[in-house]
């Protein structure tokens, strides 16, 4: 459709850096694509010399961890960038931190080996915490301890052999195998550890619904993320 020209050659990556970014406040309402676009523009403003891929439409060599659902805050979003030159991590960190928009905070930045699979390609365990937006008032309005009622629902949930949820196009999925643990602590705060792999992943909103909750009434935070290698949890910095 457009002029035939030789594809550009891929630029040589000299170093790879991984950063952990927190996404908080209203930034949780950005979709994964919005977030990706926002971070890419942040890196460009920061003047980080990101290597470009080859081809007719060269793309910056940037990779992200698995997509985070809209509405969820996170302590553990990861972005990998490949640069055309070595730069001291602290220099990159300072430049990126200064350009991140409100709601995004750079928490850590380290050099990682060039030839390793992208974080998003690992099966992984993700830990979430959900707290009621109104501080638990609505849930406890009838005078009962909301935590106790919730705990009962959790016990029932975990006892189920399968948990069928309905997704788009009449697709039915059993999410029980992906639920590793659900625990209720005071607050009430629901802590979940969920498995994700190439076959799928459960959504926190689905589990809240199964627990008889209105998902919009809960504030959810992603607190930890472990890539899995042969079933073992790795640190995201080792993966």
């Amino acid at each position, binding site marked *: 459709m*457009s002029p*035939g*020209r030789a594809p550009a050659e891929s630029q040589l990556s000299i170093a790879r850096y991984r950063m952990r970014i927190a996404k908080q406040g209203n930034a949780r309402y950005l979709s994964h*694509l919005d977030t990706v676009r926002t971070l890419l523009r942040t890196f460009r403003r920061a003047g980080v010399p990101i290597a470009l891929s080859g081809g007719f439409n060269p793309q910056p060599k940037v990779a992200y961890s698995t997509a985070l659902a809209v509405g969820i805050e996170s302590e553990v979003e990861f972005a990998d960038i490949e640069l055309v030159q070595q730069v001291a991590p602290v220099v990159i960190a300072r430049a990126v931190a200064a350009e991140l*928009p*409100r709601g995004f905070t750079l928490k850590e930045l380290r050099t990682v080996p060039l030839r390793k699979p992208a974080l998003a390609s690992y099966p992984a365990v993700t830990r979430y915490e959900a707290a009621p*937006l109104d501080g638990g008032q609505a849930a406890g309005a009838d005078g009962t301890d909301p935590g106790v009622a919730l705990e009962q629902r959790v016990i029932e949930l975990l006892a189920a052999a399968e948990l069928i949820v309905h997704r788009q196009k009449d697709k039915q999925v059993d999410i029980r195998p992906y639920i590793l643990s659900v625990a209720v602590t005071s607050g009430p705060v629901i802590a979940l550890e969920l498995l994700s792999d190439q076959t799928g992943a459960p959504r926190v909103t689905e589990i809240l619904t199964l627990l008889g909750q209105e998902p919009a009434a809960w504030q959810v935070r992603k607190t930890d993320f472990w890539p899995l290698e042969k079933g073992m949890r790795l640190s995201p910095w080792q993966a």
Partner: protein
Amino acid sequence: MSALGRAGLLPKVAKPARYLGEEHNSVHKDHAAVAVKFALAFPDVYEVGMSHLGLRLLYDILNQRPDVVCERVFAPWPDMADLMREAGVPLWALESGLPVASFDLLGFSLQHELNFTNVLYTLDLAGIPLRRADRGPEHPLVVGGGPAAFNPEPLADFFDVFVVGDGEQAVVQLVDLYLACDKDNRALLERLAGDGGPDGFYVPGAFEPRYRADGQIKEIRALADRSSVRKALLSDLALGDVPVRPIVPFLDVIHDRVTLEVCRGCTQGCRFCQAGMIYRPVRERGADLLLEQATSQLESTGYDEVSLASLSTADHTEIRELIGGLLSQHGTAGIGISLPSLRIDSFSVDLAAQLQEVRKTGLTFAPEAGTERLRRVINKNVTEQDLLDAAGAAFRQGWDSLKLYFMIGLPTETDEDLAGIADLAGKVWRLHSELRPGRGMRLAISCASFIPKPHTPFQWFGQVAPEELQRRQGLLRNLLPRRVKLSWHNVEQSIIEAAFARGDRRLGEVLELAYRRGCRFDAWDDQFQYDQWLAAFAEAGLAPAWYANRTRERDEVLPWSHIDSGVTEAFLWREYAAALRGEQTPDCRAGDCGACGVCMAYGVEPVLAAGPWGGELR
């Protein structure tokens, strides 16, 4: 309270990022520390509003002042509006989350008539009385600007004042006068309506139309000293600031890139084009200034694309220098450059081909009409050979996909002109097979329904009736081979747009009735409710056809006759007559002055980057 309200609603709507205000380069100020709070509203959804350059210009100019805070307001999508009404949360401004009603001034950008119900929708959601007569000193002063302010009569009952013409200086004058009047709305309006005030302020309450028995306007009586309103004119774009740090939206908005306005106004003189008439004279920014602006905006945003916007970018006298400079300074960094409007010639194709080195984009030409005869009528002076030369140049450069824009229902159009569109399409197709044998071609044709607009030579012309427009669309579909993709505008939306484009003050009632019947987002095909519009017209005892389809006589008092674009009515009438005779009027760029009147009226000349009246032409 409303900031909390917003927090409660965000988890429940589609695309909550429409309602945040924390994008990079957004400006947040303490309301207690400023003298004037200015809310700038765009009566459409965020993704549309944030694509509009004028809004960004004014936001920047107002926020540069330490004594002013300017915040943005967009029309919430109906899912959000329903939740707001249910929860009793009034509309907020994005940056602070504070109620729109708490601002001193509320400015609306009026781009086209199908946004009008969304003005009422925005006021209503903000808890501000729709009609100015029902508002008091406790309410914001409601201001309108943009191309639709050149005939704002259907909105006259809802606005306190309109800014007609270039907004850069006018908005500053407005704030200054507002402060000079001790923030007293009534005193400000009196001052603006009186003699000796600055150009460009139309106070609808200072004029009163009277009607004849047959429904036409008898006279538009001036109640204050000023008998007509001349548009505000920025004599040189170098005087108009552009944002050094434009907002970078989180959402994927329609125009999501650095936009440089390389020039305002156009010398081509197309007779259907309102922008080409109301933004006269042409004013180019110099290539050096534009290069500076591109660099600073790319650095402050992190965008990877620059768009060179204007009505006819290839006409810019320093376009080669500009593109060469952009390519040498930013091309290696993977920055793309786009030309939104291509002139139909091989020069333009060469420019586009130069840009393809960096980024792939489609190629679009706008012949507007299918035969040379009809193109002479509209003064779009391109020959069939020009188009085939341009298409041939594109195919030789390697393009296999082309989009052509046409209009249906232009004055004097016959079935032969529609056959001309099919004929052109066929020739372009064969040319491609010849030049690019064995390669597939994609040809898309887009047909808008012609809408006669005020302040153009066709302002007297009655729009072709809806049934006939539909017949012509069907005819064209039958004439074109199936492999040519054809798209067209919804005729029903065109009728409403046409009625309001040349409407008078009585349409305010129709507008309010339509809004009360649930009309809003009328530019959105899936939201537009024609039956409700017809019911609103009927209830008001008015007919859309009387406004849309009726051809006016020379001596009829047009509803916008007290609004002066600088282009004289005598010139427009001469152009209309020349159109009906099929005569061309030359481009005034080469010094061939058509005496439209604007340069004389303002004592200005076209501003061409390569020197007055000149430089290198094409």
